[in-house]
Each structure stands twice: as structure tokens, then as C-alpha cells.
């Protein structure tokens, strides 16, 4: 299974949806595509509700994107973590690096305040 990225703008917030598996096979392209999709500034919500699997490499891509955003003036939040993905991110400490919101709407609201 591959990974599909979709994006839309909601109330000025870029919402990117990642559907599929984020692993070593898909990670390089996801990283490339995300960097191309993300604006230089503003707000972004990454919706992972369709991300069914997250590997070590997947976690690293997420963190790299997050760090990249932080180094500019982009604010980024994650949402839609499945229980499995959340447990993995929690156990490995990756969860602590991110702003996590309960829903896309909450993210849009939190980031636009």
C-alpha cells in the first residue's frame, strides 16, 4: 500500500491528509511532497486519521517536517492519530515534540487564534 497526500485550505489553514502507510518505502516521497505542499508561513494541520501504519522512518519524516516548520514561521499541528500510531509515538517519545489536536476543526481554531 502506498501513501496518498491531499490538501485543502480551510479558514486560511492548510490541511494535509496522509492516507496509507508512512514507512521507509513511502517516507522519501512524502517528505519531498510535504515540503512542496507546505507554505512558507501560516498554519498547517496534518491529518493522520488515514495513516494506518507508521514506521521508524515515518516518525522521522514527521519530525523533520515539524522541525522545518519551526525553523520558519509555520505553525503545525497533528490530528487524527489512530490509537496504534498514538501509542507508538507516545512510547518512543515522538509525541512530545508535536502539537496534537483532537480534530481538524480544533486545529484550525487553535492555530488561527
Amino acid at each position, binding site marked *: 500500500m502506498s501513501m496518498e497526500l491531499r490538501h485543502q485550505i480551510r479558514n486560511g489553514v492548510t490541511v494535509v491528509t496522509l492516507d496509507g502507510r508512512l514507512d521507509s518505502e513511502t517516507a522519501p516521497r512524502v517528505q519531498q511532497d510535504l515540503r512542496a505542499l507546505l507554505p512558507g508561513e501560516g498554519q498547517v494541520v496534518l491529518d493522520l486519521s488515514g495513516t494506518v501504519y507508521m514506521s*521508524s522512518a515515518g516518525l522521522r519524516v514527521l519530525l523533520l517536517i515539524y522541525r522545518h516548520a519551526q525553523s520558519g514561521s509555520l505553525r503545525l499541528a497533528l490530528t487524527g492519530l489512530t490509537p496504534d500510531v498514538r501509542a507508538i509515538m*507516545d*512510547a518512543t517519545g515522538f509525541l512530545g515534540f508535536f502539537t496534537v489536536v483532537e480534530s481538524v476543526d480544533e486545529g484550525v481554531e487553535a492555530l488561527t487564534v
Partner: protein
Amino acid sequence: MTTLEPIDAYPTQRISGFSVRAGRSLPFGATRVPGGVNFSVFSNHATSVTLVLYRSGAAEPMAELPFPEAFRVGSVYAMTVFDLDVENLEYGYRVDGPHQPWLGHRFDATRVLSDPYARMLTGAGPYRHRSRVALDDFDWEDDRPPRLPHEDLVIYELHVRGFTRHPSSGVSAPGTYAGLVEKIPYLKELGVNCVELMPVFEFDESDNIFTGVNYWGYSPIGFFAPKASYATTGREHMQVDEFKHLVKELHRAGIEVLLDVVFNHTAEGDERGPSISFKGLDNATYYMLTPDRHYYNFSGTGNTLNCNHPVVRGFVLDCLRYWASEFHVDGFRFDLAAILGRGPDGELLHNPPLLESLAYDPILRDCKLIAEAWDAAGLYQVGSFPDYSRWSEWNGRYRDTVRRYIKGDLGVTGEMATRMVGSPDLYSRRGTAATVNFITSHDGFTLRDLVSYDHKHNEANGEGNRDGDDTNHSWNCGQEGETDDPAVLATRARLTRNALLLLLASRGVPMLLAGDEIGRTQLGNNNAYCHDGPLTWVDWGLREENADLFRFTRRAIAFRRAHPVLRGGSPGSVHWHGVRAWSPDWSGHCRVLVAMFDGGGDDCVYVAANSHWEAHALELPAPPRGLTWHLFADTAAAPPEDAHEPGHEPALADQTRFVIGPRSVAILVTH
């Protein structure tokens, strides 16, 4: 800025369908390099080596890549393989050479061996010994090891799985590194500042002919690989990240991390044991062999790692450096460390190169090095371990003396005094940091069992109760095992507190066994290495059931941390008393021991111990500097009066006299 690409990041040939080039000999193991993975492995006696690659979980290899002769430098075979998806990769080595056991060679090209430098093993299932490549980047942020002075440590020995595996633990990932993270607030509340983790290197938990369970894990397979089954993310092969996160969180809480490491033997056993890695890679180098090439068995487990051989010494050093630098661990406790001072023929070395290398290694400089200074062949080096002014020791004599004193043996009061002040008969040159004081450890009775059983009860271990130590210096206080007799229980409660109080008021580095602070029992089993179940797991229901004992232990730890004079000082800062002030009684029939530790200011502590079954009135010395005596703890008193909150101890009404109860320990402090 442009980053220059390495000029050797391209293949020179194809082998078995894979693009490869001659690799780099160092570092050993599988290392991610631009475009691929560099594989490097040592064998001195092999005639050929083949890299075997598998897709994750596949029964058959996807390719076998023989190392061309040109890829060998000395006895090291190295190859860079390009375009590998490391997350979907497992690997091993097929090593050919002579099968001549009479010369020490046991090569067998039909087997695929683990890489001794593997950063991960699959760890479970039919292919559990296969090696994996780890992503070793980790964001430590500004992690700072606590770097606590050795004598300030309060060590807490725990089993990663057993600590949270019990359903009562309440953690979201029971029995794992992540589960332990959730218990950090408990460790903080208790007040310990160092955890010593029982083996976390990959081992085979079914490696036991008696019960089919090896729970403790003193039988390593992968020395560079954190145990996958202790990671809730182990199935996703993220145990490296999960373990690093554990260390990072413990450090954030001010808690150091020591690893219990086993370099004296491996899981491969003797001639009858499996060939997993070393045995097939280079048996004659890695193991100590007798003149007729059988295995020396100084470890009691079948084989003995040839740890002072220069190659093996390098392996051990590489391994410890890896854990110290990549995992940020703060030190190591070496299982059966006396073996590390033996040469290739088992002889005792005067200046063991391995121990010297570890003592002076630049990366390990700040690491604690703790020796279990004996082995299974009768070598006992407590007090005489080659220390290079650097090593400390599990003080087995402290354990035995305190146990005998507590149960009321005659003639041990004098030695008890010596043990309380840092065992200067053993460590006067090295100071109190050299002695790790303990009364219980994973090996033997729990503290509750020490005062509940006269004899071991190891029937469930499958060896007819013949395994485990027979010399426990334990006392059941009147009835063997579980009882509801209030008098017996009262004596046990007092003796338990006596042990804890003496341990935490002794100079040296105290070590507690996890669960002793809440009365954990193993029902008299003193060798529970082979049980993975309620018998060995910490039952967190005891936290409530024995809340009094927890509070007592917490206060005793806090008291120690509040009083530097208990952690070290000149011999002149200790004054001995007895029933009469300034008059200790060192005669053989005396069971009363009184020490006053005076560090100046208000750091003055009076420790009175009475292992007699009758009370004694003690004449108190005048408190120094015009201060007054306050009562911190009295194990004869009912909870919660058995110990007070440090800093809030009530003043004694009578400043000249104190009655120490039967079989009791009391501590006074000046304010």
C-alpha cells in the same frame, strides 16, 4: 552551502543481484552509509563468509552475497550493499571453516549466524536471532546525565518487565520500557535517584531446560541490542527509540540508569548448546577452552567468554561505549565480574587488560563501574577486585553481616559496625564509594521473604529444591511462610524496618530491590530466574496494602539524602557508644550497637541498633553544639510513628536517656 557527496558512494560490482563495493572494516556491524549499508564482521579462522539477506519475516533469504577475497582486510570481512530498505531487512552471516572441535573450531556453513554487533534482533518468533539495522538518529534535545556523586546514589534494582507487567500496574503498556516511564513519578515519590536495570540485552526467554522460562535474562544473545520484547514498539522494531526515550525521561527526573551487563558467558552454552553467533563465527577466539578444547565453565552456565583476548576485549569495550554514548546510560553492573579478571586459560591475571581498559576508557570516564566480584567457580574478590581506583563492588559481606545481625546472631556486632561505616577493612584506600551496600537483590530472598522463611522453597523451579543458595541467613520469626499470627507479623514488620534503616544509615552506596518497599514476596523462592508470572512481578496492590512500609522507606531515603554525614566523611566523624555514652561494648555477647555520625552544624545522627530480644536503656551523649535530640525513627513504634518526616522530627522529652526496644533500630538527629 553545498554538501560534497562522498566519492565512494557508488557500487563497483554486482553480487547476487545487488550493487556492492568493498566496505569499510570499521565500525563493526551494519552501519547506514550514503546509498546503502556497510557490513563488517570478524573471523580469524573462517575460510569464507557470506552475507545473508532476508525480507522481514521471510523464511528464505532474498539473496546470499559471498564476500569476495578482495573485500577482506586481515580477518575482517566488509562490504557495502546499496539500495537496501533497512526497515524491511533482516540479515545474518553464513561462515565456513574447519569443523574440528579438537582444535576449537566449530564452523558450520549450514547455519546463519547473528551479527554480534547487531543493533537490533528480530527478538521473537522462529527467526528471533536474525539481525536488523537500526535507525540510530534520536533527538536527545538537551539531555544531561545527572552525574551524581557515587556516594549520593540510592540504587533501585528492577526488572523492566516484572516492574509493570502485573495487571495492577495501571500502565498503558505493561512490562515495557514505556511502562517504566509511566512509573517514574513513583520512583520520584520513593526518592531513589538511580535505577539498575536487570539484563536488557537480547536474550532468549525460553532458554531453560527445567521450566522453559528464562525470566531474568542473564544469558545474552545480542549485546548491542535492547530487548525487543521489553518494548511496546518491539513488533514495529522501534526498541532503540523506546529505550532511548526511557533514559531521557529518567534523566529528566534526575534519575541515573545503570545496566546489569553479562560479559562472562553467552546463551550458546557448551558443546550441547546452540550455535547462534560466536560459536560459529570464531569459537576458538570468543570462548575460553580447556587444553582438550572443551568449554571452561567459570560461569556455571556452560561456557565462559574469553574476555581478556584482545579481540573480545575490543568487543566488550565497543559495546559499553555504544551504550554510554548512544544510549546515554550512566554506568554498568558487571555480572560475575571476577571472570573478567581471568586469562584465556582461566588463570587469574594480575593486571587484567579488560578491567584496566574499562577503568581508563575516555568515553566511560564518568560511568559507574560496579563489579559483582565473584564467579561460579569459587573465586571471591570482594575487597580485592582489581579496581584501578575506579571500580566499586557489590559488597556481599555487607549483605551477610547485616542479615546475621538482624536475626540476632551472636558475635557479629563488631563486624556490623565495620559494615556500617563503609567496610574500611575492605575499602579504606578506595573510600565509601567503593562499596555498594545491599541486603537483598534479585538473586536470593526478597526482604519480606528474608524475615518469613528459614529455608528456600524452590520446588517450582523444577530441580527438586536443589537450586539456589542454602546460606541465606534468614529467619521466619516463628512460623515458616505466610501467617496471620499477629506476634509473628509484628516481629517481621520490625525486622524489615531494621534492615531498611540500617541500609540507609550505612556509609557506602545503598541498593534496594524493587518491591521491598511494599513487601513483595516470592513465597520463599530464592532463585526465581525461571518464573515469568505473579511470583516475580511487582504486585502494585501492595502499595496500598503496605502503605505504612512504603512511607517508612520513603522517609528513610529522604533522611539519608538530608544528611551528608551518612554518605561519607572521615573516620573521625563517627563516634561509638553503647548502653553507656562513649562506652561501646565490643564483646562477643553484645547485641547493642550505637554509632553517632557527626558532620558538624546540625548534621549529627545517632543510630542505635539492638538485635537482642529485650529492650535496653541507652544513656545519650550530650548533643553537640548546644543542640537537642529529636527522634527520626524507631522501629519499635507503631506506624506512622515508626519514622517521621525528615526536618519535622519531634524533640525527645528526655535528652539524657532513650529506651531502645527489643529487636529494634532507632535514629536520633540534632536540631
